[in-house]
């Protein structure tokens, strides 16, 4: 059999692949045939196996004897652990996968998803060529034709309704370079209506944590957890979501660390814990304050640490004083002894770390939750220490990178925000005329969130969680000229978003839907459109190359494993084609070389452009050359400290976890533990960032008596700028070239990196040395407080813990809180409905459900229900039921009667799609692309509810009822 299957584009439409077994292989066909000729198969089974039909699937992708094998290295594209993948390639076909023992992250290990990545190269159920929906039928197109048609329609919409009517929905599956290019692309198109999944996974973390101590990222690393003495997991289930992280966690446990799991479910992780705390969903702040009550009561807090490095703890004390054991138990349902035991365990075993995930973030008070976790750790003095920290496990392989590179409606790459200064900085990096850039945006001012007039260019766009309302809402109520009319989903699973029926309505209202993905996705089938959907096949990260940021901020380089399969193209190529069509390619790719024949931008050039502009979070030191050197010499890194011991990259931390300050020439090793003053800044040490000013109401916001090792300023100090350098008399440490670029600039905007270099030379952190703040005075709740979810079964708690008032404008949209909570649904919908992950699937699950090895392991969408609730409703295990929610959506799922959930709580995995409100949509997929496993999307039934700061959707708690179907 020939091993080459890629269609050369020149061969044109009509030709299909060579040697692709497609549907004709495997057991399915085997069974079908055997059904027709029963006797035949029976006889066949008596023959020696050599004469038997080969029952093995995907045999065209089997290793071949005597063919040269090439080994390539990539990084797993599923979760954020960043596991190394070793691919064996024969004749351009991915034929084998080997453990990457040298990777300090996974030491050769994989979870189910990581063990399956070779399937990407088989891609049986992949979208194979550009396709559009015309009169209810899928029709094949060429790339040029597709780009042309889409581009024309976009330009028409732009003319009629302005650039904000086209929504660019990016992805956490982009590489860093693709993320950056995508954000830049949206800017050049002229809109801030650009966002990605981070909005619905850790946006409340980023907002909450960054506003507490400076950066909104995981402070330590998976590997550093070896040093923990205690670990508390809140709404995090690494056994299923980050299985390889468990290797490090269990190692810590074997070293004697205590493990506490706070979760409404008894998860696989709870099974390994010393203490499982089963809370009522949505009571995270309450349980944290309940624990803190015991800590303050017993004087377990770290007073010296708080004095030196924490602002506002007294205000916290006042709030915590309300959370007596009785009140905590009343609200969370957790007995006093358990809460006390957890608090004691954390207090007696230091340093301890806190890990949280979606269980904590996806709430209307998500930002309060994340800040309350930070406060617990600050009270215990655990932040900025090896073995401590806030280890916020991120979800997708590059959700950290995509967030850092600003695929978000409220920032530019590097969290620069949307202010004029930020645009100015990036225009300088891009070498683009700022006025031309301004001209790309809608010019008419609109009324912004605070009621003040604002330019669309400086106004945060509609977030991904709310694009539905951007389409459906009356255009007079939204903060832009017109509704969204065109959605571009580039690597986005719509089944990860709530309010299915509303979304369907919105999709049918759009002029145009463009889905750029390796798979057709749920979006292509869940609506009843008959026209105007374009499906463009994107390559996976194994078919291109570039860098990816793991959860611990380490950046790893991926090699290209195989050429793009079928007619798929890498994201950067697709973006180039669009830019060319939309007329700004030359401007966008000014400093990026594009391979003309393939329309493929050179990835290293993009990396270098990133290095030139990302001063705020230190993405500046990680040049492509350094990243590749790390990949090559990854075996030299210590697996606990992540520091290279000898070898060509001696002293570096693996992947140069950001910030890696200054220019690549400065050779900053990266920062393995954020805010850790026990090391000099030049060697990865850090202080808390001076981000919120130097004093507030007469109280000093800078650190007192705490500074990083080797600092020449032995106290707190503000962030560095040309003026500060001059005051300190360090200005002349800059070279003449640096001085030219640094004049009038600060550490964030100095393109020479000189200010950072000099600050670090004197042992100082470029961003200053301040206190972490426990009170975020700019947020709706400066001190994190508990508020009941919008749909709560505990109406009795509402007088004390009601939600917010409705808001007229929040990220351009009216956002409801109190008016929803005012209605009582707890009688008709008595069960609390929550959602989460399965180990076999990830995100919207499109690629895993299309992967035969993984799909086999989870064949049915199910709802976990406690035996008590099942018995009350007369339900059996494995029975189909209707799960309905207060806003009228209902989904048909299979029961799993289990004690994993407490009575009164039901739980669904959210990875399913391909069904909508009881109907299997298999026939609506383009031929041969329907995933093997389809099921109802859990989020179809999830209800309204958005975080008060970031518009994070509330998908961890609502109400539902379950009835036999």
């Amino acid at each position, binding site marked *: 059999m020939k091993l080459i299957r890629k269609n050369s584009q020149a061969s044109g439409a009509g030709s299909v692949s060579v040697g692709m077994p497609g549907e004709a292989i*495997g*057991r399915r066909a085997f069974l079908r045939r055997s059904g027709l000729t029963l006797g035949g*198969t029976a006889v066949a089974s*008596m023959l020696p196996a050599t004469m038997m039909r080969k029952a093995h*699937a995907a045999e065209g992708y089997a290793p071949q004897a005597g063919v040269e094998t090439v080994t390539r290295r990539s990084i797993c594209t599923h979760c954020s652990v960043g596991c190394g993948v070793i691919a064996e390639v024969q004749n351009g076909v991915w034929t084998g996968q080997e453990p990457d023992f040298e990777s300090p992250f996974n030491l050769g290990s994989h979870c189910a998803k*990581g*063990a*399956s990545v070779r399937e990407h190269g088989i891609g049986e159920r992949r979208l194979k060529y550009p396709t559009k929906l015309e009169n209810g039928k899928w029709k094949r197109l060429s790339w040029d034709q597709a780009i042309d048609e889409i581009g024309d329609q976009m330009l028409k919409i732009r003319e009629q309704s302005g650039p904000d009517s086209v929504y660019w929905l990016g992805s956490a599956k982009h590489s860093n370079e693709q993320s950056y290019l995508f954000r830049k692309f949206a800017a050049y198109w002229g809109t801030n209506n650009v966002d990605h999944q981070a909005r619905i996974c850790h946006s409340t973390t980023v907002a909450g944590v960054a506003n507490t101590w400076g950066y909104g990222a995981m402070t330590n690393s998976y590997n550093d957890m070896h040093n923990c003495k205690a670990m508390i997991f809140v709404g995090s289930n690494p056994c299923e979501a980050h299985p390889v992280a468990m290797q490090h966690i*269990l190692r810590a446990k074997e070293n004697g660390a205590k493990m506490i799991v706070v979760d409404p479910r008894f998860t696989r992780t709870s099974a390994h814990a010393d203490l*499982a705390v089963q809370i009522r969903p949505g009571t995270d702040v309450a349980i944290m304050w309940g624990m803190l009550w015991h800590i303050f009561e017993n004087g377990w807090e770290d007073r010296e640490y708080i004095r030196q490095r924490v602002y506002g703890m007294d205000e916290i004390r006042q709030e915590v004083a309300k959370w007596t054991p009785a009140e905590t138990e009343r609200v969370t349902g957790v007995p006093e002894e358990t809460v006390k035991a957890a608090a004691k365990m954390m207090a007696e075993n230091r340093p301890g770390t806190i890990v949280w995930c979606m269980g904590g973030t996806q709430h209307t008070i998500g930002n309060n939750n994340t800040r309350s976790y930070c406060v617990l750790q600050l009270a215990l003095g655990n932040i900025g220490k090896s073995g401590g920290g806030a280890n916020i496990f991120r979800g997708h392989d590059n959700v950290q990178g995509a967030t850092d590179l600003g695929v978000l409606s409220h920032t530019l790459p590097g969290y620069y925000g949307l202010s004029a200064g930020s645009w100015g900085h990036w225009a300088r990096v891009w070498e683009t005329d700022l006025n031309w850039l301004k001209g790309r945006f809608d010019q008419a001012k609109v009324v912004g969130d605070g009621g003040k007039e604002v330019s669309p260019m400086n106004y945060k766009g509609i977030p991904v969680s709310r694009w539905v309302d951007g389409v459906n809402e009356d255009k007079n109520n939204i903060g832009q000229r017109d509704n969204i009319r065109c959605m571009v989903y580039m690597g986005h699973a719509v089944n990860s978003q709530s309010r299915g029926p509303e979304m369907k309505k919105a999709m049918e209202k759009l002029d145009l839907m463009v889905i750029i993905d390796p798979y057709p996705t749920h979006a292509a089938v869940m609506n009843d459109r008959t026209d105007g959907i374009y499906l463009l096949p994107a390559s996976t990260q194994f078919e291109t190359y570039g860098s990816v940021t793991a959860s611990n901020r380490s950046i790893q380089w991926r090699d290209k494993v195989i050429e793009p399969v079928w007619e798929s193209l890498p994201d950067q190529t697709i973006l180039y084609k669009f830019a060319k069509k939309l007329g700004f390619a030359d401007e966008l790719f000014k400093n990026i070389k594009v391979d003309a024949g393939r329309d493929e931008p050179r990835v290293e050039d993009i990396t270098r452009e990133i290095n030139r502009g990302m001063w705020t979070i230190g993405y500046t030191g990680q040049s492509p050359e350094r990243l590749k050197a790390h990949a090559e010499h990854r075996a030299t890194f210590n697996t606990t400290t992540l520091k290279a011991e000898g070898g060509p990259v001696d002293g570096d931390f693996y992947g140069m976890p950001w910030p890696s300050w200054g220019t690549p020439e400065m050779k900053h090793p990266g920062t393995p533990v954020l805010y850790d003053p026990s090391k000099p800044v030049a060697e990865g040490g850090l202080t808390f960032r001076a981000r919120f000013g130097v004093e507030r109401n007469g109280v000093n916001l800078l650190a007192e008596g705490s500074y990083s090792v080797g600092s020449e300023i032995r106290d707190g100090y503000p962030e560095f700028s040309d003026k500060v350098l001059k005051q300190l008399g360090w200005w002349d440490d800059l070279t003449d070239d640096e001085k030219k670029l640094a004049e009038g600039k600060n550490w964030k905007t100095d393109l020479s990196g000189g200010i950072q270099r000099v600050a670090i030379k004197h042992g100082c952190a470029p961003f200053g040395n301040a206190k972490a703040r426990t009170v975020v005075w700019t947020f709706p709740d400066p001190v994190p407080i508990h508020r009941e979810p919008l749909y709560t079964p505990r109406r009795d708690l509402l007088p004390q813990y009601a939600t917010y008032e409705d808001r007229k404008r929040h990220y351009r949209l009216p956002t409801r809180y109190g008016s929803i909570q005012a209605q009582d649904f707890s009688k008709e919908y008595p069960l609390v409905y929550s959602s989460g992950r399965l180990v076999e699937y990830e995100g919207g699950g499109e690629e895993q459900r299309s992967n035969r090895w993984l799909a086999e392991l989870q064949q049915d969408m199910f709802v976990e229900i406690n035996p008590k609730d099942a018995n009350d409703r007369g339900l059996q295990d494995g029975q189909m039921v209707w799960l309905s929610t207060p806003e009228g959506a209902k989904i048909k799922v299979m029961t799993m009667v289990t004690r994993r959930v407490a009575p009164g709580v039901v739980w669904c995995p959210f990875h399913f799609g391909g069904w909508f409100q009881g109907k299997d949509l298999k026939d609506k997929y383009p031929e041969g692309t329907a995933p093997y496993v389809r099921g109802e999307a859990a989020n179809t039934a999830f209800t309204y509810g958005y975080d008060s700061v970031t518009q994070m959707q509330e998908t961890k708690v609502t109400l539902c009822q379950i009835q036999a179907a």
Partner: protein
Amino acid sequence: MARMKFLCDAERCIECNACVVACKNENSVPWGVNRRRVVVLDDGVPGEKSISVACMHCTDAPCAAVCPVDCFYTTEDGIVLHDKDLCIGCGYCFYACPFGAPQYPQKEAFGVRGKMDKCTFCAGGPPADNSDAEYKKYGRNRIAEGKLPLCAEFCSTKALLGGDGDMIADIYRKRVLKRGGRPQTWGWETAYKAS
């Protein structure tokens, strides 16, 4: 003489199913046939434990004892293999095996099951090592390449140990000592006292 064995450390197994998928991937095992699986006991309640199980390559293998055509054989390093050319798909090995290791690609009328398939410890079967014929019938022969079964090599928490029985015993003993030496830190005996 080394004797190859599997051992699953239940204190570490987290039911991530990497072993199951690794096997599918490495040996192109078709849908419905699972040479390895993970079983969770006491699912969702304190005491929950997960175990990965496959062919245990028994010394006195019951499958070999009951096979009517005597198609099983044991390699020098203790790996129990079988010859699919001899196998008649009678199902007896499935009845006899304590671990449910033998698998059949079909389950149809007239006892048609196809050739039995089971874990080979990634050691292939009778055809020439790493030949196409061997791959098609038995999957990859990693042992001949000096590698261990991919399920164990991929295990996310290194719970599944595969290799020389003595070395496995050594590692496991060390782990048990480490856990046992800190009575307050391991296992369910202490875990739920607080609640």
